[in-house]
Structures are given as C-alpha cells and as structure tokens.
C-alpha cells in the first residue's frame, strides 16, 4: 500500500479508487479502525468513516503493532489540554507529502531560515519545518515562549547571506516577535514567512489580516503564507497569500459536515481524507469549521464553538481537559 501512496503523491492517480483501496487495507490492518467502522457500506471516498481527532487520546489507531512505533507525534491539545498521540513507523510518506505540496504551492523552498515553531521531537509541525530546512535554529520553546531578541538577530544575520529565508511560526509566536521593537528587515527574494495555528486558548488574539500586514511590513519582501496542518494529518494545506483559501494537495479531499449529524453541509465541521495517512486512518474529523469551495480549496473559520455550558455541569472540553 505504501508504494501505491508514494506513487500517487509523486505522479497522481484516481483519488476515489486509491482512497477506497486504502480504506479496505486499513480496515484489514487496523483492528481499532475496523471496529470503529462497523458494518458501514462505503461506495465513495466521502463515505469513509472519519474518527474524531479526539479519539487519538484514547486509541492509537495504527495499521501496525503499536509496540513497533518509531515516531510519535503528540497533538497540541488546543484548549482541551489533554493531548493525543499519533504513532508512525517512519516519516517517509509524511516527508514526501510535505515537501511535494509545499513546493507546488510555494515554489522552491528556502534552504536557510529561522524557526518560531516548537522544536520538540514529538511536534509534527517542528518535524516538517526541520525537514524543509535542516539545522534551522529555533527561537521558540513551549516553556519560555519566543526569544524575540535572538530571533530578530538571527533573521538579520541570515538576511546578510542573501539566500532566501524560511521563517515558520505559530500565529501567537509571530505576534510576540512583532511586539519586539526591531527595525524592519529587507528579506532576500524568495523568502517565506509561514503562519500557522490560531490564538485559541491564548489571552490575546490578533486578527489574521492585521498580523499578516504587520509581518509584511516588518519582514519586507517575504511572501506571507498560511499553513494548516495537525499531527493527525500526514499532509498540509497552504494558503498563498496567507489571507486566501487553503489549498489541499491532490492526494487529499476535504468535506464540510453538519457538526451534529455529520451529514455533508455547505459550511461545517471539516473532515479530511488524506492518502498520506496510510499508517493510521486516512479520514479524520477535526473540530475546525470552514467552507469547502467547488475547486476543493478550504476557507477556515476557526474552531467549532464548544458545547454551550450545560447548566452547572462540566462542559465537554473542561471534562476532557
């Protein structure tokens, strides 16, 4: 199956047919997913059962003996606190998918950069960025936040080389970077500022357009782009420029569903069907809300509003925290 996925990512293919083959293969090799699916009839990729991402807190959902796990990505937990784990045997397909689609969306990737994303080994985001630009220094850590002084200094030094820069950061880390009173920097042509994530659970929030404008003003010449990904997904979506819709790779489909019924909807909860998820489950249901356009691109609208406080009972998110 892995060879089929590799081939699809490299040279394309029939998505529906490949997705259905992968679904059948995953049911055969992933006992937890097989039980999750039960007796459902699947005729089209959009019928494939999509476990909620929160299920990764309870189950490993792997197509291999979990004891053989070589790579473990932990979910961010967002506002609920409790973190799930995604187990992988290797990152070959993950890496291939990441580079292929990033290159398709952004052009040649810079070979030097300054990182403002988590660098922990269990961060899929950190893994992707390190794969793009090996050895890239990171000026963010979960405990201490952003080292803005160090980051600006590193950006200025890297700029001097004249080589395009890759500056990936979470939205709140980049907002912290901008809070630091540094002079604007003229970045070399081909430089990219990658914005990912939102401000959910943070005490402050900067509207995306304001953040993107401010980044353009302070990191002059760089393309400010958006990235959407998560540990449970083997692929990423990119928005170029950052305010535009997100473009999924050819080996992914996105479906909006009614949050309660799970039925397809114009606007709703986003389900991703990602062939790069070949070692876990190809379909997942996120807690993000958006619109899927006719061309397959996705307009993100943020996180699903949590459960309305139910009297004096715990809300679902609090109980899961």
């Amino acid at each position: 199956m892995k060879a089929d996925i590799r081939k699809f990512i490299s040279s394309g293919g029939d998505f529906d047919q490949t997705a259905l083959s992968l679904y059948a293969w995953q049911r055969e090799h992933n006992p937890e997913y097989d039980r999750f699916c039960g007796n459902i009839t699947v005729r089209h990729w959009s019928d494939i059962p999509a476990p909620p991402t929160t299920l990764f807190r309870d189950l490993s959902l792997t197509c291999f003996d979990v004891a053989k796990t070589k790579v473990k990505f932990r979910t961010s937990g967002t506002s609920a606190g409790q973190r799930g784990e995604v187990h992988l045997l290797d990152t070959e397909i993950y890496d291939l998918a990441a580079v292929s689609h990033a290159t398709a969306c952004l052009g040649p990737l810079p070979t030097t950069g300054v990182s403002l994303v988590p660098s922990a080994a269990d961060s899929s985001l950190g893994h992707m960025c390190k794969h793009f630009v090996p050895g890239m220094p990171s000026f963010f850590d979960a405990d201490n936040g952003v080292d803005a002084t160090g980051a600006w200094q590193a950006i200025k030094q890297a700029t001097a080389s004249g080589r395009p820069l890759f500056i990936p950061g979470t939205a709140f880390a980049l907002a912290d970077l901008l809070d630091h009173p540094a002079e604007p920097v003229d970045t070399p042509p081909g430089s990219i500022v990658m914005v990912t994530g939102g401000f959910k659970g943070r005490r402050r929030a900067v509207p995306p357009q304001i953040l993107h404008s401010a980044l353009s003003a302070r990191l002059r010449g760089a393309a400010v782009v958006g990235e959407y990904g998560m540990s449970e997904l083997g692929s990423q979506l990119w928005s170029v420029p950052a305010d535009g819709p997100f473009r999924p790779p050819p080996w992914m489909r996105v479906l909006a569903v009614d949050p309660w019924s799970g039925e397809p909807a114009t606007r709703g909860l986003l389900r991703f069907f990602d062939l790069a998820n070949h070692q876990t489950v190809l379909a997942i249901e996120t807690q993000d809300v958006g619109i899927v356009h006719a061309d397959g691109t996705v307009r993100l609208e943020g996180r699903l509003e949590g459960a309305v406080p139910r009297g004096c009972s715990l809300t679902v998110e609090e109980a899961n925290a």
Partner: protein
Amino acid sequence: MLESAIAALAALRSQDAGPLSQGLSAENAAACLHQAIRPLNPTSLRAAVEAAGPIPPAIAIVVSSGVFTTPIEWTAIAVSAGCSVHLKAPASDPALCRALAEVFTANGADVTWSISRKLPPVDAIIAFGGDQSVADVASANPTVPVEQYGHRFSVAWVAGDPIAAAGPLAIDLVRYDGRGCMAPTAVFTTGDPHVLAEAIAGQLQELEQRFPRGAVDPGLGPEWRRRLGLARVVGSSWTGSEWAVTVTPPKYFTPAALPRMVNIHPASSIDELRTILAPWRPWLSTLGTDADGISIDGVHRVCRLGWMQAPSIPRHHDGRPMLYGLNRPPGG
C-alpha cells in the same frame, strides 16, 4: 408572602412549558416544569425558609442557561421569606425568568428580571454557571456576599437488579435531556453492564415516544461520535434515533453529560467508584443509586434512581441549605 409564592407557582404551572424550556420538547418541558414545582408547597417552603436562616431583604439570582427550571425553587423560597428577587436571565433565552417575574409580580411579590449583567443594588447574590462565570460575578460585585454555584456533575450507581434500575435511570436521563449538574453523566455498576445497557436502551426507546428529545447543541456532535466510536472499539453500544447507550471500561469515564447518551462502566465495588471519582471530588453533586447506605467523599446528595433530577424541598445544594449564609460579610 408564602401565599403569593404558592399562587405564583400555580400560575406558572398552568403555562405552556415548551417556550420556557430552552429547547426541550414540549412534552419533556411540561414534565420538567411539573417535577420542579411539585415539591414546592406551603410545608416545604416554610421548612426551606427555616433551614436558610436569616435571608437579606433583596437578593439577585444569576441564572445560567441549561436547566430552565433552576430559578423557580430559589425564587419561591426567597419570596416566601419576604425577600425581593432580581433575576439576571441568560441572554440566550430569558423566557422562564420573564415568566417567573410576571407570575410572582402578579401575585404581589417583588420579582424583577433583566438580561443585563449590571445588577440592581441587592444585599446578596446567588450565581449559577461555569466556575469562571460565577467567579466573575463575585469579582464584579465585591460589596455583597455572592454564593457561587459553579460546575458540578452527577453519576449513578447500580448494585442491584439491572432491570429494575433501568426504568428510573431512563427517567433521570430523559429529564432536561441531560442538562445540569444533577443529570447522570455516567452509570457505574457491579452487575452485568450489558444487561443494564439493554434494559436502559429499551426504556429510552419507549420514553422517546412520550418525551421526545429537544434541540441539541451542534457543538456536542464530535463528542457524541467520539464516545460512540470508542464504545464500538473498546466496548459495546446501542443507539436509537435520539439516544445512545455505551458500555466501556471505567478508565474512559468522562464527567460531562450528553443529551440522552448514557455511558455505563463496570466497577468491581463501591470502593472502585470512590477511587474513580476521587480526582473529581470538588465537582461532585448527586449520586443516584439503588443501594442503601452509600456515601462518597464530595457527593453532596445521595438519592434513589429516578429522583436524581427531582430533588426534594427543603434540601441542601452543594452541601449547603438553599439560601443559607447570605447575611455573611462580602467575600466571607
């Protein structure tokens, strides 16, 4: 003012409960309203006033959305004690508070309502809602005592005949569609959980006809699917069009209720349940059970199955007599 309260409650009872219920079905809303008013009679109200001790002349009640009948008993007791009451209604659905103020005012009591967060001058406040919300109410009103009733949840414990337990438990699950701190978030049993699950499933199916489920919060959909999916993988599940029953190991206990989904967990003994609930001690409310002589640290109320959502009057709420201690100094 006891007579005013009784007359007002009679007037409220005659109203169409559906529009007051924050989305419950008309049939379920009527049953919930009846259940909430039934224990409020001259004898119980007198006893509740006595148990409360001195109550200041003017109080405000900050009402959260969810259990639409919550302010009824508090208002009735306060009015019976001669107090004026201001109801801060949930902005999303103030219908019950408005109706409550109207019937009490029409019967000579001083009961007002508003959705404004700015409260009129009062001597004490009773606040319901999330932990942060009630703390915010206290912070915003530092000069008066604020009785804070934040998050709580309840569970059921079945040690006897599962068939006999299923009917009353289903009533506890159906009332208010699982909203509120007294709704059972999970059922623990020493018996065969599958027998209990099948019995409850049968009862829920039957009750669905008599008391249809009301509107559901779409935001609960992913959690509904997570629990059902988890049960398919590690346990068992039964589903109807408006209800679900799951059986999963106790390590998957989640202390948040979903509308007409019950999660059953096997437990070897009451001591195991005590261990499971120990981390949640500050948030425990009610234990519904078919066993005698059960106590669990942190549980403020133990009742028979079928009565979890129908507390008697007078009673304690979160371990304190209702309206007790409102004469204390601010912040005390």
